[in-house]
């Protein structure tokens, strides 16, 4: 193997790494914000509140990310009304379509994680808070959500890694991410091992960083639950 072709194209990998990192970070942040109300709706027993949220998460978790991207990127462009709309200046950009798809996708998965965490809330804590005279809004904000976030953390860590890996498909719609850089090097130099092993190593390092960060976060969030020694 000859990694000099990779060294010669380091600019592509650098640009690709940057595109991967910022797109995943922005998608996760916006997706999380969107997931909170959807997750609360999903935990509701009122079918009028629950059903629309269920339908949204059902569709987005039941289909491949790639198809969602194709529907938003190529699909929306099929309609003249979309092309004439004021949002077209954003939708015509490949990176925006990818970002929109990722946000909707990760929000759906995150909402389901949150729903699970809210539903496993110990009943006693909720009753105690009610007994203290907390309003439903305050109860949600002060008691349920903080506790649910904590319980959702390990599953959300997996979701972050899934989003990072899922983002590799943007290379299919003309955005140059880490995978895109590798495909460029492969088609130009006919060097599949060097090209994809380099990209794979970058993803591995990013995954490792995420796992490490999540572990530290878990440790600090669960610090009060650890047995005290000494």
């Amino acid at each position, binding site marked *: 193997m000859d990694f000099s072709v990779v060294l010669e194209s380091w600019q592509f990998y650098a640009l690709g790494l940057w595109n991967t990192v910022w797109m995943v970070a922005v998608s996760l942040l916006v997706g999380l914000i969107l997931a909170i109300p959807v997750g609360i709706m999903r935990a509701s027993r009122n079918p009028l509140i629950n059903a629309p949220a269920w339908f949204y998460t059902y569709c987005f978790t039941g289909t491949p*990310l790639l198809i969602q991207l*194709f529907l938003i990127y*190529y*699909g929306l462009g*099929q309609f003249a009304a979309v092309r004439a709309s004021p949002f077209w200046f954003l939708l015509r950009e490949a990176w925006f379509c990818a970002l929109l798809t990722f946000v909707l996708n990760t929000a759906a998965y995150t909402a389901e994680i949150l729903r699970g965490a809210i539903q496993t809330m110990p009943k006693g804590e909720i009753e105690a808070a009610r007994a203290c005279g907390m309003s439903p809004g305050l109860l949600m904000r002060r008691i349920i959500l903080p506790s649910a976030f904590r319980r959702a953390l390990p599953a959300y860590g997996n979701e972050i890694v899934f989003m990072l890996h*899922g983002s590799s498909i943007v290379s299919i719609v003309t955005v140059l991410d880490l995978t895109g850089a590798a495909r460029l090097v492969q088609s130009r130099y006919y060097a599949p091992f060097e090209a994809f092993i380099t990209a*794979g190593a970058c993803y*591995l390092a990013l*995954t490792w960083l995420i796992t490490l960060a999540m572990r530290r976060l878990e440790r600090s969030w669960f610090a009060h639950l650890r047995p005290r020694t000494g």
Partner: protein
Amino acid sequence: MLDLHGYGWTILEGARLTLASALLSVVLAVLIGIAVALLRLSGSRFASGAALTYTTVIRGIPDLVLMLLIFFGGQILVNKLVAAIDPWIEAQGGTPIGYLDINPFIAGVLTLAVIYGAYMAETFRGAILAVPHGQLESARAFGMTPFQVFRRVLFPQAVRHALPGITNNWLVLLKSTALLSVIGLDDMVRKAQYAVGATRLPFTFYLFVAVLFLLFTTASLLVLRTLEARAQRPYR
């Protein structure tokens, strides 16, 4: 209703290939998963280290990157291999292979199996650890061979613990097959791409494929949840 401009059947035929590749790879992945989980728990430092490396590396790299690596790189490796053994075959008086094609189906199924084998290994590791240790010891005390312990005591119980994990991995794997279109498998996604190329109606065809995927995931969930419930029944 959706007007599919004559491409409906082609896409459904692609759906057959989607399902075939998913089913074949999940069977292989479960086998790999069990084997790797046993290695991981074998007590041998080398075997357990190798198994850990495999699961960590594979689960740290996107499916698409691994597929591209195996599809493009695999062909070169196979070519080298064939070139190396052909002279030997000829010397033995046989017909040389000349060329072995890594077609997208084989490459895809193998890649998915290797990737999801790593996830299955994690699932089975947890499931095996959930089987009470005392049972294994008493089985051994009865004079069972290690294989008998595995088949009669460990496996039946581990599968029950592993079922929810297997369900989850299957759903992710099923959706991952969409990526096989990128390495040239004529699955339903790629068939839809052909249709889009000819008709310029991307929304119509990708929506059709999305609905098919939704049908498949829903059907899988119904079947697997029933199975899980049945597996839990004796323990309630």
